[in-house]
């Protein structure tokens, strides 16, 4: 049994150690040994933090809504200059602290082996210090007890992430970093405004002591806060930066950003929903929120399905996942508004489980794709292929991670969505209008799930199956196991979380409402099933089939060519990831906005029929086409007009002063 003090010390050490490691890393240049040392320090810190947070979670016996009581652990008392409870840990913070630290642990582990492979692209000191600040910011955000500290930590986190995005200092990264930065700024501005409105101007008030949300100003503040977190989480229409920025970072950092930072945005939202708003949001706000988040889930999945850049596709998948998590949060609020506390509790648990799983599989996927890209030297799925043959174990692990991302059994994500779907579907009978809304909710969820499955299959198939589509892919070397041990652990954890979900939930939420546990089974909305049984029966079925096959057939297969209709088969004939995604691109073209251009150039002068045709294909995004560009154009237009002020004519400048004087005299007196 750990005492409260011990837990507090663990968490504080976990806060500080990455910073120490980062500063230490500043002196190492691109040295491998330094990198290892920094990685080990980070792992140590993360492990301690995870232990602290985990111990806190499992030792407390609290209600479902994690901070339904006062903060339980006051970290601020160790820092005399901070007001009491300005840093504090309650159940919600502890849960997300656990997520952050587990994610950071895995990523640090990975980067020990990964970064030396990329030493000619990145400067390690840069990465180390930015990562340190980034993680410090995330942890501090999660344990902050006042808006001031929250924003302080939030900004540190956001800007450190910026430097991870531009770490390779390419023009493309800087451009992506710009869209990240502007959206981050916008989000932070919304948070500042929101907290100012919600706290009535007292940024130093504890979250718990903020006045109840009442009146138009406070509701506006709440909406601004939601927008702020949505911007960080990549919710439509604030999502565009995410698929641009996350892939540009080194893969270990992408893993941190997608896997962990987005969880911090989610934490912010939940903190506000729970502690500030007490889930009492006006219905129109909930509906608007749900509409946007659900659309995000669908849209992210769609774009993940049609994207051919491996890391961008993963980032789009993150957009989808954040849409799912945010809409789950919206559903919690909706169920509370409808008085269905049990249902709200169940969705809350689904959400938290999903958050944990997403941290695992998304950081795992990014790390794995980092390992992959370090060998293939391309992010383009269309230039990969044939890797499953070269790296059977790695590809198996990648497939498992894809399974988690597609929310298929036996991964934890499946059970999260199962709890959610069952709860929502069980509540459909509550009334016609609500039923209609809930029906739409689960339809969109199902469509998003289908698209996500499509996307994941496409990613896996594009990267690993068939013949290699480029020289790099054809001549990849071996991948050492040490390099992908960390994502493998993430995958195993994600699956294990699914299989042993009832045990996990019993440990964290012993007295949950809405979800019950009996033995290995979960019970939701009057139905129950046991993840363990599902896995066992699946394994039994496969084993049975395998045994049967072995009994009936024992001849060894013969290796032949693929049927090639007589012409030698080349990799140019295969379906690429882009080709694979043609149907959704076509079916949903109003969302994918494909632009096709066929350029035909005559090859010879005397015969105009001999032409060389080239297909140029690009796709825009709806947010860019209908929101960002018009807004940018409007801002540019206004700026252009205002710029006439600086006409260069000194007489005009003097006239300005004169006019200002006269007008002020007239208005003010």
């Amino acid at each position: 049994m750990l005492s409260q003090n011990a837990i507090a010390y663990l968490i504080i050490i976990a806060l500080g150690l990455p910073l120490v490691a980062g500063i230490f890393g500043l002196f190492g240049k691109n040295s491998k040994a330094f990198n290892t040392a920094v990685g080990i320090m980070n792992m140590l810190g993360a492990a301690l933090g995870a232990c602290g947070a985990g111990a806190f979670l499992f030792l407390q016996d609290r209600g479902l809504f994690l901070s339904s009581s006062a903060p339980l652990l006051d970290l601020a008392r160790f820092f005399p200059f901070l007001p009491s409870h300005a840093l504090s840990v309650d159940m919600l913070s502890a849960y997300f602290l656990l997520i952050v630290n587990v994610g950071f642990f895995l990523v640090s582990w990975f980067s020990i082996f990964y970064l030396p492979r990329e030493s000619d692209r990145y400067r390690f000191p840069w990465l180390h210090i930015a990562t340190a600040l980034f993680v410090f910011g995330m942890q501090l955000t999660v344990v902050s007890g006042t808006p001031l500290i929250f924003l302080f930590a939030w900004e540190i986190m956001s800007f450190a992430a910026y430097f991870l995005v531009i770490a390779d200092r390419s023009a493309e990264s800087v451009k992506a970093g710009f869209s990240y930065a502007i959206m981050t700024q916008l989000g932070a501005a919304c948070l500042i405004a929101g907290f100012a409105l919600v706290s009535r101007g007292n940024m130093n008030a504890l979250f718990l002591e903020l006045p109840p949300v009442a009146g138009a100003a406070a509701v506006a503040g709440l909406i601004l806060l939601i927008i702020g977190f949505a911007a960080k989480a990549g919710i439509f229409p604030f999502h565009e930066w995410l698929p641009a920025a996350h892939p540009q970072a080194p893969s270990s950092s992408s893993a941190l950003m997608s896997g962990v930072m987005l969880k911090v945005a989610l934490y912010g939202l939940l903190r506000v929903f729970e502690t500030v708003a007490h889930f009492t949001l006006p219905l129109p706000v909930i509906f608007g929120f749900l509409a946007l988040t659900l659309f995000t889930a669908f849209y992210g999945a769609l774009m993940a399905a049609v994207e051919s850049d491996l890391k961008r596709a993963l980032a789009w998948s993150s957009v989808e996942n954040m849409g799912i998590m945010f809409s789950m949060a919206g559903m919690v609020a909706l169920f509370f508004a409808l008085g269905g506390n049990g249902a709200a509790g169940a969705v809350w648990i689904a959400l938290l489980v999903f958050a944990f799983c997403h941290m695992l599989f998304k950081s795992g996927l990014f790390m794995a794709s980092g390992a992959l890209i370090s060998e293939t030297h391309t992010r383009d799925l269309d230039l990969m292929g044939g890797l499953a043959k070269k790296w059977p174990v790695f590809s198996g692990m990648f497939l498992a991670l894809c399974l988690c991302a597609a929310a298929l059994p036996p991964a934890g994500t499946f059970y999260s969505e199962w709890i959610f779907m069952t709860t929502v579907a069980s509540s459909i009978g509550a009334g016609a209008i609500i039923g209609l809304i809930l029906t739409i909710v689960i339809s969109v969820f199902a469509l998003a799930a289908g698209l996500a499955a499509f996307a994941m299959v496409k990613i896996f198939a594009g990267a690993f199956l068939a013949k290699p589509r480029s020289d790099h892919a054809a001549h990849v070397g071996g991948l050492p196991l040490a390099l992908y041990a960390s994502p493998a652990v993430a995958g195993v954890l994600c699956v294990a979380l699914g299989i042993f979900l009832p045990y996990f939930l019993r440990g964290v939420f012993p007295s949950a409402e809405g979800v019950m546990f009996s033995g290995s089974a979960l019970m939701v909305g009057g139905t129950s099933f046991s993840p363990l049984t599902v896995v066992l029966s699946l394994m039994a079925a496969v084993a049975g089939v395998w045994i049967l096959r072995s009994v009936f057939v024992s001849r060894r297969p013969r290796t032949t060519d693929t049927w090639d209709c007589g012409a030698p088969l080349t990799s140019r004939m295969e379906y690429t990831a882009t080709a694979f995604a043609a149907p959704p691109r076509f079916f949903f073209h109003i969302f994918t906005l494909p632009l096709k251009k066929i350029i035909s150039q005559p090859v010879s002068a005397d015969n105009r029929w001999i032409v060389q045709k080239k297909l140029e294909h690009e796709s825009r995004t709806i947010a860019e086409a209908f929101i960002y560009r018009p807004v940018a154009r409007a801002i540019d237009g206004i700026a252009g007009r205002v710029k006439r002020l600086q006409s260069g004519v000194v007489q005009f400048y003097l006239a300005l002063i004169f006019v200002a004087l006269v007008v002020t005299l007239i208005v003010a007196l």
Partner: protein
Amino acid sequence: MYIILLVFAAAVTALLCLLMRSYRAVAVCALAGSLAVFVFALFTVAVWFGLLPGGYSALKFDGFGAVILTLIATVQLFAVSAGIPYLKAELEEGTITLSQVRWYGALIPLFVISMAVAVSANGLGLMWIALEATTLATTMLVAFYTKGGSLEAAWKYILVCSAGIAIGLIGILLLYYAVYLAGNGADVASVTWTGLLASAKTLPPAVVKLAFVFIFIGFGTKVGIVPMHTWLPDAHGRTPSPVSGMLSGVLLSVALLIIYRAKLVVDAVLGSSAWSDNFFIFFGALSVVVPVCFMIRQKNYKRLLAYSSIEHMGFAVFALGFGPAGVVFALIQIIGHALLKSALFFGTGNILLAYKSTKFEKVSAVARNLPRLAVLFTLALLMLLAVPPSPLFFSELGIFSLGFASHPYVSAIVLLALVIAAGSFFMNFMPMLFASHEHAQPLHQDKERWNAVHTVIAAALTLAAGFGIALLIGPGGQMISRIISIN
């Protein structure tokens, strides 16, 4: 007492600089003088805070002024230090001559004198003279490079600022007149800030209000309040970088301090701050929003920084509209801005020397070619964008928590403008610092050496960060509010 020593030391420095025959001698003179000024300024402030024995009569401080004087002392020391390697490089390249360096060495102390006197003068007349003198002292610095653009900038600078300050003089005359009308035995011959505050109840409100309008618009020119800001980007963009740092960092604050004092007077006369607050909120918001339009597609990095100065000062003006708490945050804003913006301007000097252009498109991959500068410059940039632990983070947060409570819509617009401003920094500066373009490489590929500019930026960053952390953990904020409360 010490302020007289300060003026004396600076004057001697100016004279000596003119007489020196070698660059090294001028540099030593300037640096020594600058150090002396710094020390005397600190003594002055210390006396005022009661830390040292001594007295003062014609020269007067309030808490605000003391802080500004400290800032002047600090920034001028930084600027002189940063200027030594900068001018040396330009001299070696033949861009300037030794006689120009001498003049430079002479004008800087004069500039410092005029600012110090403007801040500490109690008498309105003396203050006005000093303020006009700042313009005169800096005009030649703006015209330093004697090229077309510089002359144009200088012409606009002197004409617009002089006209503005002349309008401010009308305001001051009206204050004299108010005292004259009150006729309560107060000697018209010595209208002072303290005197005005003391006899505020007897002054005729109508005249004082009128005076305030003239002072606000007139001296607002010098602060760079929109729409009187037009001279500012030209002047700041054309001066040698160290001087740009001083102009941006402290000169604007000096003028703002004077407007703030006038506000205290008019508030005391009217018995409430409601009337004057509106000025600050309106013009402050305008001064934040308008420069942002120029920052978005700015081609010249020094001008971008100059517009950003307008925006930051505008934000401080905005803050002054929110009562005593607003003043605290405005002061934090001014301190942070003075340290960081001057540091950035010093940094642009090195970039200009390496790349020979102030255009964004001509500069790239600073991080590769000038790695040390790039690190410092980026840090300063971030802190200027209110990334914690920058003091600007706290001022921004504080100002908006006040602003949203009373003027939510205006605050929202201002906040949005700040976002776009930050975006313009990311859009323009980050590619210049980190990305690489073929046609935008430095003219010579020497390895970067650590010089005074780096030291100065690092020192400014340390000061700013330290101040920010002090604000976070408490004492900083309390100290500032205590300082403000002293009049």
